[in-house]
């Protein structure tokens, strides 16, 4: 009896195996891995043009063997209705099954991002299982297909490595925002703040003149040499899923320092030297603690006080003022930096209130505390109220180190 029972159970188990099983099994080498996806508005052929950047695993991943003469990547652009069914359409030219497993970046042209309909296609990304929410969204100045074709990294030839490093380093320096899909969906659905996507270009813009180093948009920085001309700097601003404006590198940094959900912790910037108008000093801003935001509601009008804590390290001393040893000079330096920082912060806030009519630094999260129920908060309509709010920014500054060697030479004495 016992044995028979066990036999029956085993047979049932075997039958159960046949019910499910290995139908989604796919060997790794049978897939073509899409690293980057470009989305463009199509003029006539179909709703959108999709550009696929496909990695060739055989190049650069093995010490010996492999196919070293093959190109490192394949790029194809094709008209499509959406970027999900493209996986099959692309098989007209690509020999393997397309997979979005290793996707790093979705690049959208500025033209397409400004479309009202843009968000309809973006939500396909939430449907597709293979697309992860940590994929980055970037906006290219030119057409995405053009960007992908022109982008030819010299050292990081394998595309996934290039995007991985480029984005990671850009986010660390604060010049581009951390714009993953998850954040895009979250911010869009909250309908209270603005979403920042990284702004990129592979086309050089010759028309600009020299300004402050960080105040550039991609393509504007004049870089010569043999390097790849692709630039990642600044951000594209999305309101309710539509691109409405752009921020340069410096503004992007400010937006991120205000934002407690981003983890930018230390950036290097330059500011005018308080002791000599001709020069600029380099400082390192370290944000050790989150921004302290206090809000109150008076007669339906928002009153916001932000206190940004910074530890500042002064890295250069071009005026040779030797402030490290002089407490008087330190005081001047501190006041100067504080007012400069506050000024640029207020300028930025003014821009967001007047030009963008929304805030790109998750301010609504602090605002939720003012309301006791969700309907009350929703009625308040944060997006509409923000432009009228009174906002004060205070920089709470601490001076840190003054470089490795604190004292510099007395120039007058040396050149006597």
């Amino acid at each position, binding site marked *: 009896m016992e044995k028979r029972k066990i036999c029956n159970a085993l047979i049932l188990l075997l039958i159960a*195996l046949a019910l*499910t*099983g*290995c139908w*989604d*099994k*796919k*060997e*790794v*080498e049978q*897939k073509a*891995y899409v*690293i980057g996806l470009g989305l463009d508005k199509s003029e006539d052929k179909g709703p959108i043009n999709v550009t696929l950047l496909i*990695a060739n*695993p*055989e190049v650069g*991943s*093995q010490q010996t*063997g*492999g196919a070293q003469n093959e190109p490192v990547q394949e790029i194809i652009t094709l008209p499509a209705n959406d970027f999900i069914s493209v996986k099959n359409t692309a098989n007209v030219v690509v020999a393997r099954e397309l*997979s979005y*497993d*290793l996707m*790093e970046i979705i690049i959208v042209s500025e033209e397409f991002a400004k479309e009202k309909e843009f968000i309809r296609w973006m939500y396909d990304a939430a449907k597709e299982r*293979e697309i*992860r929410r940590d994929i980055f969204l970037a906006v290219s100045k030119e057409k995405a297909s053009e960007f992908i074709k022109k982008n030819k990294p010299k050292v990081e030839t*394998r595309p*996934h*490595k290039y995007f*991985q490093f480029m984005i990671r380093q850009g986010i660390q320096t604060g010049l581009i925002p951390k714009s993953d899909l998850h954040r895009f969906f979250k911010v869009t659905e909250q309908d209270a703040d603005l979403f920042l996507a990284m702004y990129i270009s592979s086309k050089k813009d010759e028309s600009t003149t020299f300004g402050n180093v960080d105040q550039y948009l991609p393509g504007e920085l004049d870089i010569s040499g043999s390097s790849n001309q692709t630039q990642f700097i600044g951000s594209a601003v999305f309101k309710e899923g539509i691109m409405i404006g752009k921020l340069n590198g410096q503004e992007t940094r400010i937006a991120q320092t205000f934002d407690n959900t981003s983890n930018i912790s230390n950036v290097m910037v330059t500011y005018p030297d308080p002791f000599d108008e001709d020069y600029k000093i380099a400082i390192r801003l370290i944000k050790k603690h989150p921004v302290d935001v206090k809000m109150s509601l008076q007669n339906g009008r928002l009153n916001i006080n932000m206190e940004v804590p910074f530890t500042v390290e002064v890295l250069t001393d071009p005026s040779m003022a030797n402030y490290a040893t002089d407490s008087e000079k330190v005081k001047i330096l501190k006041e100067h930096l504080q007012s400069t920082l506050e000024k640029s912060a207020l300028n930025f806030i003014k821009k967001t209130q007047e030009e963008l009519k929304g805030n790109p630094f998750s301010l609504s999260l602090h605002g939720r505390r003012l309301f006791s129920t969700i309907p009350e908060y929703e009625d308040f309509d944060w997006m509409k109220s923000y432009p009228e709010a009174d906002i004060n920014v205070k920089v709470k500054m601490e001076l840190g180190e003054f470089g490795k060697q604190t004292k510099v030479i007395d120039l007058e004495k040396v050149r006597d």
Partner: protein
Amino acid sequence: MWTPLQRKKLKQKLQLPERSASKDIELKEQSISPLLNDCLSLFKNIYSVPDNKDVQIRELTINKLEMQAAAVFINTIADTKEVEDRVIQPLLLNRDENKQITDIVTAQTVKTVTIVKDAMAEINNGNTVVFVEGMTKCFVLNTSNFQSRAISNAEDEVILKGPKEAFNEKAVTNISLVRKKIRNENLIVESVEISKRSKNEVFVLYIKDLVNDELLGNIKKRLSSLNADAIQNLSLLEQYIEERQLSLFPSILYTERPDRAASFLEDGHIVLLMDNSPASLILPATFWSFFHTPEEHYLRFPFGNITRALRMAALFIALFTSAIYVSITNYHSEMIPPDLLLAIASTREKVPFPAVVEILIMEVAFELIREAGLRVPNPIGPTIGIVGALILGEAAVSANIISPIVIIVVALGGLCSFSVSDINLNYAVRFIKFIFISAAGIFGIYGMTALFIMGIFYLVSLKSFGVPYLAPLSPKYVSSGDTMFRTLLKNEVFRPGYLKPKDIVKKGGEN
């Protein structure tokens, strides 16, 4: 076990040419005849003397007493010098008319038996039996000396720090090795005869004032109920007495280390010893006793626990690496970093087999190397290394049969499986690895998880002589907490509660 009905059916089917032994049995059951000649001819008949070369019958006349006598012994298993010095010479050179025979011989022990069967048993054990004309009893003199090898180093359970000696094939030596570690009158060595024809004897060792009587009774009952013609050694006995013969997991610990046996005895376990077995059986045994080695207690606290952590990691690596490789490459390729995934894809580009087959080929090859390496005669041994490393490793990769990553995966798993030193658990881990690989090939990580959970269910349901397999971790018992990690020696205060020992407190804490 065969039922009598089945046995009868089997006999009918096979038409076994069986001859009734009832006449022989009758002969053996009778008492010893007072007539020496009758008696000797009976024994000559039974032992087929003179065909049987090593059975010796020495007839003599006891000096002064003037009695006819004969000494019967088997010279290959008796100490012939002992027979000569302590039995034959004293009898021949006796100078006192009034002495009893028991006083004349100088053997260590002398006892008398009256039944033929008993006398035969003594002869078969290497003792000398002296028959005397006119007596209905005979004298048994202890002269037994079986040949055996000397005590040597433990070879299968090697440790660096701690005693090196191991059991050998002689039970007497083995008992002596255990007694050397436990100098206590409560250490009892009982013997139970477990086979009918070969009369194999098992020694049951326990500490009287610790062991749980119910457990002891249960084990003794199981031993004496065995009904086999011969059970030569402990490896065979283990299979006769274990509860789940088909289970992959062992329920009796087989160890060749006397120090291990002694420490289990001191915890209230029962140890079985037997001639012809260079080992002992320890029961009941839990999962932890297979997982541990004595080294972890001999090493200092931190190092012992680091070893345990390593072994636990190795156990899981051995079980899972190949399976994880299969499931990740087949189902969850998004789980690995792009660099690795592209590297795997690139190396698999020219391999003609699916990843499961690739892994199975290498795993089977690895098992073959292991098996062949075990059986190969010593002088040819180095060939195995060359064949294994060069041909299976290098050449398989250059021939595009196997991708190099698979070699790493399989080699890592294989290496880790060696860190489980118990041979039974080692086999279990190696076999279960294959089940995991097939589960991974069919269902991916989901299948592995399901199988692992089922395995845990099974482990929890297992029992060894009434003791839950994962005790004292699950279910919880009072114990010294020696499971995945060990505690400080001074904190090992309790004997394992799942044994229900008579004295649970091992030491009274710090003085």
